[in-house]
């Protein structure tokens, strides 16, 4: 197990190396002067020079890369070109809304989607199954910003149950915090529910025909226990996997949701950085999210061994 873990961590290093190289080359391979690209059309020569020095663009390419990697490995992600604040501090200030929405989304999605998928598989071919599958295709197809605005229209404008936009930190009270979290979470969970429900159904269908399920039923165990204790436990591995691969969806969803609901989180930070061409921030965000993606999928692979004792590495 330890050996496997070590091998997996080692295998992640070249992946992150490629990501770093890609991020590094993204700016340098762009046609034209990178400093001019960042500064925009109305930059003065002094501004251009400042950007060049701050990014080290006057050095040879390999020197730039080595310096940059060296800084990265020491935890220095650079300084924003716009606000002159270290990127790590900027992220720290805005991580709370993003983590809150992401966690709430995953929890809501799992709680809603897994039972939906189980029931759809159990009642395969009936109207319940068709309804769940229809909902799932819809979830994939209606963009999160469309859902977001529909939710705002219904619950914030027509019914006036919830605030339209914004975010309140947990430190300012649980009520206001949850109130502003409900709509973004609902909007974002939709696609996640679709993804997980579908995977749960497919994976349940695979195990429901197995002998041990028939045995469990023959023993006279209640149907709920058969479904959730005997079948679902064996169907869990693909479901957990899809939560991990769906992480990429979550990222794009967070970026959009934060824009729709005016939430000052990491997603909004990234979009603002992109619009302002704040390159160190863009670079850092791509690196960090990729690292997170790789780590999450690594953790999920490890989780398999806990969930399913048959899987041994």
């Amino acid at each position, binding site marked *: 197990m330890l050996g496997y873990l070590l091998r997996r961590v080692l295998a992640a290093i*070249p*992946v*992150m*190396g*490629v*990501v770093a*190289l*890609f*991020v590094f080359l*993204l*700016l340098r391979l*762009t*046609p034209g002067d990178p400093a001019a*690209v960042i500064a925009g059309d109305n930059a003065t020569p002094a501004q251009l020079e400042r950007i060049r020095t701050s990014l080290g663009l006057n050095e040879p390419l390999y020197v730039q890369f080595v310096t940059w990697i060296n800084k990265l490995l020491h935890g220095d992600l650079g300084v924003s070109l716009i606000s002159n604040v270290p990127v790590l501090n900027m992220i720290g200030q805005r991580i709370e809304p993003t983590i809150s929405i992401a966690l709430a989304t995953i929890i809501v999605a799992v709680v809603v989607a897994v039972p939906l998928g189980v029931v759809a598989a159990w009642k395969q071919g009936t109207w319940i199954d068709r309804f769940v599958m229809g909902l799932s*295709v*819809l979830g*994939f*197809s*209606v*963009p999160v*910003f*469309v859902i977001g*605005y*529909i939710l*705002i*229209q219904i619950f914030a*404008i027509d019914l006036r149950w919830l605030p339209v936009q914004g975010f309140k930190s947990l430190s300012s009270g649980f009520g206001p915090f949850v109130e502003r979290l409900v709509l973004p979470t609902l909007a974002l969970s939709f696609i996640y529910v679709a993804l997980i429900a579908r995977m749960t159904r497919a994976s349940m*269908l695979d195990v429901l*025909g197995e002998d041990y399920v028939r045995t469990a039923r023959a023993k006279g165990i209640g149907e709920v226990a058969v479904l959730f204790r005997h079948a679902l436990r064996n169907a869990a591995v693909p479901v957990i996997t899809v939560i991990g691969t769906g992480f*990429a969806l979550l*990222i*794009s969803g967070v*970026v*959009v949701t934060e*824009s*729709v609901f005016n939430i000052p989180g990491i997603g909004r930070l*990234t*979009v603002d950085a*992109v*619009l302002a*061409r704040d390159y160190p921030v*863009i670079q850092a*965000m*791509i690196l960090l*999210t*990729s690292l997170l*993606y*790789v780590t999450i999928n690594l953790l999920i692979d490890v989780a398999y061994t806990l969930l399913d004792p048959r899987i041994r590495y």
Partner: protein
Amino acid sequence: MAIESLPEPSIAIAAPPRPRFGFLTATPIIATATFCLVAIALLSILAPWIAPHDPLQLLPAQRLKPASEQFLLGTDAYGRDVLSRIIYGGRISLLIGFGATLVSISIGLLIGLFSGFFRLLDAVLMRIMDGIMAIPAILLAIAVVSLSGASVMTVLIAITIPEIPRVARLVRSVVLSAREEPYVEAAISVGSALPKIMWRHLLPNTIAPLIVQGTNFCASAILTEAILSFLGAGISPETPTWGNIMAEGRAYFLIKPSLIFWPGLLLSIAILSVNLIGDAARDALDPRMKQREAGK
């Protein structure tokens, strides 16, 4: 003596499955999806003849007008006809959707074919593909667009890059299993040229999975383009795209929500149709699905 007729082979030689397109009208729902997609495509292609107004024409006196006989869906903040902009908006969505699919499949197919065939190349190529796949597609896309300037071409490239590794991996896996098949081993051992082996024996195996992957990606490419435009990191705002119309509508959402809902509806219908067709394609073309159905 010329051989006029060969004896029947004792073992049936199965040709690689050829995709059939009957699934496009298999059920009423799929048929509706196909119809919607064709209708949206026709609207987009015939936009100059169908649209009641010029989508770029500014009428400052007619700002944010409600629906009327002159402007069926009203006007936007610059006095442009919303209906015409929505009709034209389909052009970019479909162009990007189908364009990105074709390009990513072509490049991914090449990488996958070579990667599946040459071990040494495989190790290097797949590490690069893993790296690109680790970067969230949307971040990669907005970064590429913001750095190289917003045009249809850059948006297309930005959406295509993250998909290439997924196609390459799929093709590679098909090639890896196909090259163990007796007919490929036979072709190698009789000294068939490599391009011929790839073209005649490996490529046909990849067609069915690629159609499935392609339709799924087409839907997500349409979505990504709309997200890019919506975030302001896509094609320049005056160009009518569904995402752009909605992005402009954000500021006026409380006054005129229809600026978001109409393009959102069309966008959703387009993506839904492509997704449904993709599901139907998978059910029709994926042999594993057939086995599962048969085993029931």
